[in-house]
């Protein structure tokens, strides 16, 4: 009973906040609704027993990716009337992307029903060993059977990260740089002097 209520709560919230993400006029509101959608998707993951994936979804997407989205959207000064003016022009392209995504989902479900995935069973229930926790099972699989694919994914991400840094990093001549080791090496007697001027006389520095 409680599972059913929880499932419909999370599912309705995910779909509704996904829809409002697209419909809301303010981009910051959009990102916040997107975060709610992520969060409810994580709730759905917990319900199917994939608590490790759920936590990773929250940590990676809500905790890191969406924060960056929010940063960018808050900083940018976008004129939304201008953005919406291109709606009709880009509509065919958008519809095409939506169609491709729909086809992929249908294909994925079809393949899953056909039983071509070893990890699951065709009737939609995932065959998970009862005594092994989620985290252990994923770890055992990632670091044995899919080790090279996993490492390759890591290297691709590293290369992408370095590429992004190289592309956006530029040396600006006028920028002031803190020399931390020099600051730490500084001692009071280098920076201050103790003088006792006579009354009525100033100090020359």
């Amino acid at each position, binding site marked *: 009973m409680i599972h059913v209520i929880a499932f419909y709560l999370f599912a309705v919230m995910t779909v509704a906040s996904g829809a409002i993400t697209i419909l809301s006029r303010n981009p910051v509101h959009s990102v916040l609704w997107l975060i709610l959608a992520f969060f409810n998707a994580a709730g759905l993951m917990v319900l199917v027993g994939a608590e490790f994936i759920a936590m*990773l979804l*929250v940590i990676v997407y809500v*905790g*890191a990716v969406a*924060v960056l989205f929010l940063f960018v959207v808050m900083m940018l000064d976008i004129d939304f009337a201008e953005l919406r003016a291109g709606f009709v022009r880009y509509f065919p392209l958008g519809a095409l992307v939506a169609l491709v995504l729909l086809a992929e989902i249908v294909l994925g479900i079809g393949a899953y029903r056909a039983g071509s995935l070893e990890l699951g069973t065709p009737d939609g229930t995932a065959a998970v060993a009862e005594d092994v926790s989620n985290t252990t099972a994923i770890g055992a699989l990632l670091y044995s059977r899919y080790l090279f694919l996993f490492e390759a994914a890591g290297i691709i991400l590293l290369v992408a990260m370095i590429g992004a840094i190289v592309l956006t990093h530029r040396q600006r001549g006028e920028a002031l740089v803190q020399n931390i080791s020099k600051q730490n090496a500084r001692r009071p007697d280098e920076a201050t002097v103790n003088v006792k001027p006579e009354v009525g006389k100033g100090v020359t520095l």
Partner: protein
Amino acid sequence: MTAFFQSLGMTYDWAWFVATICGILLIALPLMLAVAMIIYVDRKIWAAMALRRGPNVVGPFGLLQSFADGLKVFLQETIVPSAANKGIFLIAPVVTFTIALMAWAVIPFNSGAMLADINVGLLYILAISSLGVYGTIMAGWASNSKYPFFSAMRASAQMISYEVSIGFIIICVVLWSGTFNMNDIVKAQQGHVFGIFNGFVFNPLLFPMWVMFLISSLAETQRAPFDLTEAESELVAGYQTEYSSMAFAAYWLGEYANVLLMCALNTTLFFGGWLPPLDWAPLYLVPGFIWFLLKVFFFFFVFSWVKATVPRYRYDQLMRLGWKVFLPVSLLFVVLVSGYLMLTRYS
């Protein structure tokens, strides 16, 4: 507790529901009381270190000061700036306050005494603490004012930076204990060093991790010396500048609940949680939650002590410490710890 309510003749669903509500109240209400008292304790410690008296007027020894402050704040008028984004402005403190309470669900107060005994407990805490940024960033943006916005940017950059090194430090602990479950992490610390000491902190490979974790938790909760988000000489009062009344109080309570959470995490991950400090039979006669509370209070004292004595960092120093010192060192220790375990435990 579910079994108890089932024995009263409820169905499993209702028994679970009532038991969970009771569990939440059992944690949240004492926590709120603890937050009120800990604010008083913070001010008293701070005053003692500055040779002042601190709050001493309301109630005996000023014990009721926090409640008087709470009443004052409660009776104030709620002001929403006319240029603010009203919805987000009002939701932001609720988000901060709720998230500060949520993480307490997986903290073990005694052997098995936790609301949710889940096997990804530590990941849950990481996930919840990564949500903490939103309360701040929403407040800063929705206030539609310069200083709160600057402060929110600082706060979120700071929290994201230190979450990275906290993640690596936690991985070291998880490698050693072999589980994400908070209760099992505490159990793994029993008799950890020579069968005498309870706690990962006595392990030479994990001791530097604890030092970094303590400093990172100061930065994560925006306590001194990393309280740049409310550096009053620069930013008025930080992201909560425009807030008044109960919304302000929600930030205040949430901040201290987060500080207590970080103290509890230090206790659970490195100081053996509800275990006594020594693995010696007579010490186990003292109930586990008393050891837990004593350790949490000790860490809170350390937090106040730091606040009273250490001058504020510069922002570039803060970022350098997070990214150029803690991140490489914690990464190195992940390699060291896993290498050591591969040689000794899994070979």
